[in-house]
């Protein structure tokens, strides 16, 4: 009952000096606002990343070579291979051979639906007069399309005959068709295109057109966006004059496998004997789950670091609140004396001022949340993500601003509560 009266009182005293209250709240508003803005962007980003990873296939296990390091741990913390296939030190003998993959397929044929292999030829440009399109050319095997679900709009996938004949055929995105053939898909089919990759020209016939799905990562403009184009793996090998063997491949697990991570571990175990004697490389696996997790961890770490810095402004805001509470208590010394003369207990006085400080911070916090979410949502939208409401962050922010109110209001309120009634009444 007294608490409601205190809340009413707190609001009326804040409203009595609106400008002062607003300026004091500004610290809290900016502090909470920036934390919430960052959290909004981060949770939008995390959502985008995990949906795009999930789209890439939750059942996929990527198997790849990883350089052995001093403190080599065999955990599947994703994202740390892939670049290793470009290191000069990788020898042909280090690479994963066709035989190994065949052995794996035979041994685990119940668990493996398909083995997708891809090898990048490089990024290049298709040019025809003033028309151009950026593509990243990848050599893929037949099974590749089992790991990566593409929506075929026209034509066909790369098939076994393309691979065995090392044919110069290519599957491009509808973006390419838009840029090069004014979007006319049937006209584009079986057309020849010239691709310039690292100043070498390659010619391919278009056999398939798939629908390009925007991922959370793209940042280029519509026109310039680089889309993947797929050619037979054998063709890519020949054109790149690459070594035999592969640096990575993707296993599409059958739906019978319920624990993808455990299955990934057993693949690592399978490769152990092959790489036991290899000083430089070992096999490591990555699942979408672990990728999403490690990406999420990364985003979270960065977010927490930034939020922490933003949180420092909260500290400054809190000090502002404490300052204004001290001023307000000095101004209202006689009122405190009067209240005590009328029978207010020390605890009632304390509660009154702590409530006031909490309300001040809470109102500031709520403004901050609104401001922060708005800014964060705008930023996320501009970056091309769907804005996500960071519920936990909002709850934490509300709780945190109340805590700031209690923490920084406690000392002034206690000071007020301890005032001697006579000294307070005599105060001029």
């Amino acid at each position: 009952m007294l608490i409601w009266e205190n809340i009413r009182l707190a609001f009326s005293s804040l409203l009595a000096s609106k400008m002062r209250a607003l300026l004091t709240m500004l610290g809290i508003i900016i502090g909470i606002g920036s934390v919430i803005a960052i959290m909004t962007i981060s949770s939008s980003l995390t959502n985008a990343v995990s949906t795009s990873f999930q789209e890439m296939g939750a059942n996929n296990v990527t198997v790849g070579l990883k350089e052995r390091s001093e403190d080599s741990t065999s955990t599947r913390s994703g994202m740390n291979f892939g670049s290793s296939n470009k290191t000069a030190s990788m020898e042909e003998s280090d690479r994963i051979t066709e035989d190994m993959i065949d052995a794996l397929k035979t041994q685990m044929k119940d668990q493996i639906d398909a083995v997708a292999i891809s090898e990048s030829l490089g990024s290049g440009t298709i040019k025809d007069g003033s028309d151009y399109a950026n593509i990243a050319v990848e050599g893929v095997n037949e099974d590749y399309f089992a790991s990566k679900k593409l929506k075929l709009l026209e034509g066909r996938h790369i098939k076994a005959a393309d691979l065995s004949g090392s044919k110069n055929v290519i599957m491009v995105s509808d973006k390419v068709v838009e840029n090069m053939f004014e979007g006319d898909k049937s006209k584009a089919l079986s057309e020849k295109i010239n691709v310039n990759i690292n100043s070498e020209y390659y010619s391919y016939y278009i056999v398939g057109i798939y629908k390009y799905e925007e991922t959370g990562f793209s940042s280029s403009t519509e026109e310039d966006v680089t889309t993947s184009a797929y050619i037979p793996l054998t063709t890519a090998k020949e054109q790149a004059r690459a070594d035999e063997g592969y640096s990575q491949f993707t296993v599409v697990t059958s739906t019978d496998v319920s624990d993808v991570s455990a299955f990934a571990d057993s693949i690592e175990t399978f490769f152990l004997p092959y790489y036991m004697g290899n000083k430089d490389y070992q096999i490591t696996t990555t699942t979408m789950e672990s990728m999403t997790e490690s990406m999420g961890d990364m985003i979270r770490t960065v977010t927490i670091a930034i939020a922490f810095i933003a949180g420092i402004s909260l500290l400054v805001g809190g000090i502002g609140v404490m300052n204004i509470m001290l001023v307000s208590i000095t101004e209202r010394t006689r009122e405190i004396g009067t209240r005590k003369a009328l029978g207010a207990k020390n605890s009632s006085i304390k509660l009154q001022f702590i409530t006031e400080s909490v309300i001040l911070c809470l109102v500031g916090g709520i403004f901050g949340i609104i401001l922060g979410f708005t800014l964060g949502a705008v930023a996320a939208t501009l970056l091309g993500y769907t804005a996500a409401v960071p519920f936990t962050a909002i709850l934490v922010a509300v709780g945190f601003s109340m805590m700031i109110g209690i923490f920084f209001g406690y000392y002034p309120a206690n000071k007020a509560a301890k005032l001697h009634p006579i000294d307070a009444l005599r105060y001029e």
Partner: protein
Amino acid sequence: MPKKDSNTVIQLSHIVKRFFVGKPNELEILHGIDLEVKEGEFLSIVGESGSGKSTLMNIIGALDKPTEGGYILDGTDVCRAKDKKLSEIRNQKIGFVFQTYNLVARSTALSNVELPMLYAGISKQERHARAKELLEMVGMGERMTHKSDELSGGQKQRVAIARAMANNPSIILADEPTGSLDSKTGRVIMDIFHRLHHEEGKTIVFITHSPELAKETQRIVTLSDGMIADERKGDRVC
């Protein structure tokens, strides 16, 4: 004049009050005051400025503790009471009226009167009803929702008296309640005190600089330099 069988509500015995002003100096303001006030008595305290009237009043009102001496208020040993108990005494047994009104700024007359009841934990409806009744009694029924800064001195003092009466205390302490008012308004206030004494049977201790007003009470105590210099009967008989 107090009746023979009425109880003593205020019993001060050999009250000494010293203030510490700087380390070596001790300022003794009250030098051993003995005073008894009976239930239902209307007492006035007079004396020149600085004689210690307010200091004594603060001790009577449990706002301050004496340095030496004993004080029993309605059976409670005030000197040994803790802060919480003192708050309760001030809330339940005593109603204060100050020279400078001391209304809570930005609050309406009504919420000012409700304040002591709020601290007593009385329900909202009850508070509201009682505050209205009291404001009507002091003739402020028309201005209940006015903020305290919108009231004249006399009006403020009437609100303050209503507030002092909120928890129906047995003792009303008034420190120069007419000191800031013109004589006509002072008269109105004084009449309210007479009514509280006569109709409600309140014990009233009243500090004043006006000999005429003091004469209207039952007993006049004159303080001089922190000691009771004189005690005489006033004109009021009962």
